[in-house]
């Protein structure tokens, strides 16, 4: 392990820890609210480890398994290009077990930090992401446990958690907006996202908009 890279990953994700923690609490609260046992809410955070998919799961639970799985699939599809993008950043020497561990925590936040870190010299990407991933998983699990146990005693929405969480993604996008292609991709993504809100089902909006914008951006010359 390249210690400086691990520590850098831990430091970088620590900045995102408070909103992630609050979101974990919110998930725990909502899961218990729809009738899920507290242990199952925590198990969902451990097994699925995807905020968007978990919120879709608890939100659509009353609608049945079919609705949940269609939504989860729509949300999960964005991980395919994410997986390809991260695979490109890893050297061939990284073993399969390590790759699968990195895949298990292929979440938007640490993926974004990793893509940004890959632009810095001297960062060992697998070690950087491992450091960030460990903090993220522990943070997410503690948040979920707290929310599931305290249930209705806490109301994280009072602090505007739901509205402020997207700012984190804006923050992850900001360092990547450099050059003509990036600017056009960013504008295309914003336009595609607004269009997706009006025409696509909720679970497919982000994946649809991101793929459409990336197709536009990939055709632009630098």
């Amino acid at each position, binding site marked *: 392990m390249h210690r400086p890279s691990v520590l850098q990953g831990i430091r970088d994700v620590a*900045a995102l820890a408070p*909103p992630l923690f609050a979101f974990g609490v919110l998930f725990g609260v909502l899961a218990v609210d729809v009738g899920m*046992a507290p242990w*199952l809410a925590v*198990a*969902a955070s451990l*097994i*699925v480890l995807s905020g968007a*998919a*978990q919120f879709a*799961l608890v939100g659509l*639970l009353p609608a049945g*398994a079919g609705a949940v*799985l269609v939504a989860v699939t729509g*949300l*999960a599809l*964005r*991980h*395919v*290009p*994410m*997986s*390809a*993008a*991260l*695979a*490109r950043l890893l050297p061939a020497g990284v*073993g399969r077990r390590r*790759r*699968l561990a990195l*895949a*298990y925590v292929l979440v*938007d936040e640490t993926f*974004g930090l990793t893509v940004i870190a890959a632009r810095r010299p001297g960062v060992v990407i697998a070690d950087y992401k491992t450091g960030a991933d460990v903090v993220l998983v522990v943070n997410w699990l503690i948040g979920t446990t707290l929310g599931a146990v305290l249930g209705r005693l806490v109301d994280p929405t009072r602090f505007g958690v739901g*509205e*402020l969480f*997207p*700012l*984190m993604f*804006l*923050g992850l*996008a*900001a*360092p*990547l*907006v450099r050059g003509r*292609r*990036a600017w056009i991709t960013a504008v*295309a993504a*914003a336009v595609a*996202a*607004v269009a*997706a*809100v009006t025409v696509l089902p909720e679970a497919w909006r*982000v994946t649809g*908009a*991101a*793929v459409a*914008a990336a197709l536009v951006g*990939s055709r632009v010359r630098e």
Partner: protein
Amino acid sequence: MSELSLVVVAGLITFASRASYLWRRSSTVPASPFLEVFPLALFVSLATVGLAAPDGTLEVGPGIAAGIGGILGAVLGRRRILWVIGAGAAAFAVARLV
């Protein structure tokens, strides 16, 4: 299907998509402009959907103000993440008060 089975299947779908390229031992993913810009497209989409349609439908509210504040924060703070979140949160708070 029990709730536990549903959670496990959701986890398997999510993991399968995450491991789709990463499971290969050697780096066989070719360089492509699509993969280069996909992360940016993803984050802007996540931010836009979350800020412009927090409840699922488009609405002009504090979320839009937070987005504008976040962009200003990015410009003033040389694209640093904390500047974006801080300026966006401040704009959100002001817009909610107004």
